[in-house]
């Protein structure tokens, strides 16, 4: 029988992953805090029903995934061109840039790094996937759960998890290939290098870009490999703990507000 101490210990050790997972689902710090808190309360309340069919961590992620899914079910998914829409809104919002500049100069987590922006961009674009696909992609590719574990978490067959994963990867690969100027010269989005010019005006952007393997590999590797290299970047960054966390979370809050309004009007 699992004790409360074991639950507390496991919850404490997986809490950073859980928080970043829910943030990547909701794009909201506030909603993330609520869902993580509710996950703990539910796990605590139902601890006796945990039979050990999965690991305790998988069980905790199951509770969190169900809460996130229920929370997001009624909400519309973001469009693929979310960054274009939000950029336009930001350009007409002087306060947004003033706040960003203040964070950049005063916060210990106010650095701007292209890698950090790549992970931010991944979070925004992944919200254009159907929710099951987004969940599977994050659980498998970012949080390293096995297909069998994801099947338990989402209460689906392994075949369906493979379907969601395959479709999610195919869609995301195609979106980034079409949009991202870092991997495709014809890409329509240059936002990360533009922002780098604003926040790090003294940096030589080409030198910075060459530090990123995905950029160096562009033109040589196939689209799927470039997507894997993008996933490596995302995996390596905790959106709450990185050196750019304050700046990127502020940006994410802005994008969520813009998308909420955009989707409501639509």
């Amino acid at each position, binding site marked *: 029988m699992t004790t409360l101490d074991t639950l507390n210990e496991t919850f404490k050790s997986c809490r950073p992953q859980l928080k970043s997972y829910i943030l990547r689902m909701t794009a909201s710090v506030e909603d993330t805090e609520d869902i993580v808190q509710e996950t703990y309360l539910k796990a605590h309340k139902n601890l006796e029903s945990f039979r050990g069919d999965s690991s305790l961590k998988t069980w905790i992620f199951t509770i969190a995934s169900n809460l996130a899914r229920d929370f997001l079910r009624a909400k519309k998914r973001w469009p693929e061109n979310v960054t274009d829409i939000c950029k336009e809104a930001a350009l007409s919002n002087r306060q947004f840039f003033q706040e960003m500049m203040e964070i950049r100069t005063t916060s210990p987590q106010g650095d701007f790094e292209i890698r950090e922006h790549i992970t931010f961009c991944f979070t925004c674009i992944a919200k254009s996937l159907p929710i099951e696909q987004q969940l599977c992609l994050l659980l498998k590719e970012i949080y390293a759960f096995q297909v069998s574990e994801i099947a338990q978490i989402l209460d689906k*067959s392994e*075949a369906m*998890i*493979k*379907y969601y*994963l*395959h*479709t999610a990867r195919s869609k995301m690969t195609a979106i980034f290939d079409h949009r991202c100027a870092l991997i495709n010269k014809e890409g329509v989005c240059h936002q990360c290098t533009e922002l780098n010019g604003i926040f790090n005006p003294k940096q030589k952007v080409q030198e910075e870009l060459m530090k990123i393997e995905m950029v160096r590999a562009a033109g040589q590797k196939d689209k799927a490999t470039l997507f894997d290299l993008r996933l490596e970047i995302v995996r390596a960054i905790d959106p709450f703990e990185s050196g750019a966390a304050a700046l990127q979370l502020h940006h994410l809050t802005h994008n969520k507000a813009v998308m909420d309004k955009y989707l409501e009007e639509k």
Partner: protein
Amino acid sequence: MRQIQILLFIMTTTVSAFAQTGKASTIKKTFSRQTSVSVRIAADREVIWALLTNADDFPRWNSTILKMEGDIAQGEKISLVSTLDITRTFKLKVKKLAPETEMVWTDGAAPFFKGLRTYTLTANPDGSSTFSMSEKIGGLMFPMAAKHIPDFDASFEKFAADLKQEAEIIQHSNQ
């Protein structure tokens, strides 16, 4: 008697195997035409069904569909543009939908001209699935329109081959 039994067995297995090879066939009549294709797919029915019922995703894996919009659900309307006629958007209705078993799409209006597209899935004992698709078009106006309607055989064969390839890639992916 024994020889007849052997002959019947050979005939049955040959017909069955032929029916699942992905080769399309068409039966033409005065007031109708029916094209059918059937293929064995080494994948679970639920994966095949997911591919067949996700409209937005169709053009990604199916080279005969250029665009599809709508919700593939009982009673819903969908629109599609196919390689059979890229200038035309077909407006279809999902007349019947029995999950992982059968789905029927219709267009046109009886008795003048009506199209009926039927998809069926059956589970095989070896864990594979048999996918069949047929389209019957016909009606009082059919004899006049027949010469303007393109042949479906090649498109049906491509549809079945694409579905088989995509479903088997997913099923056997080592994620």
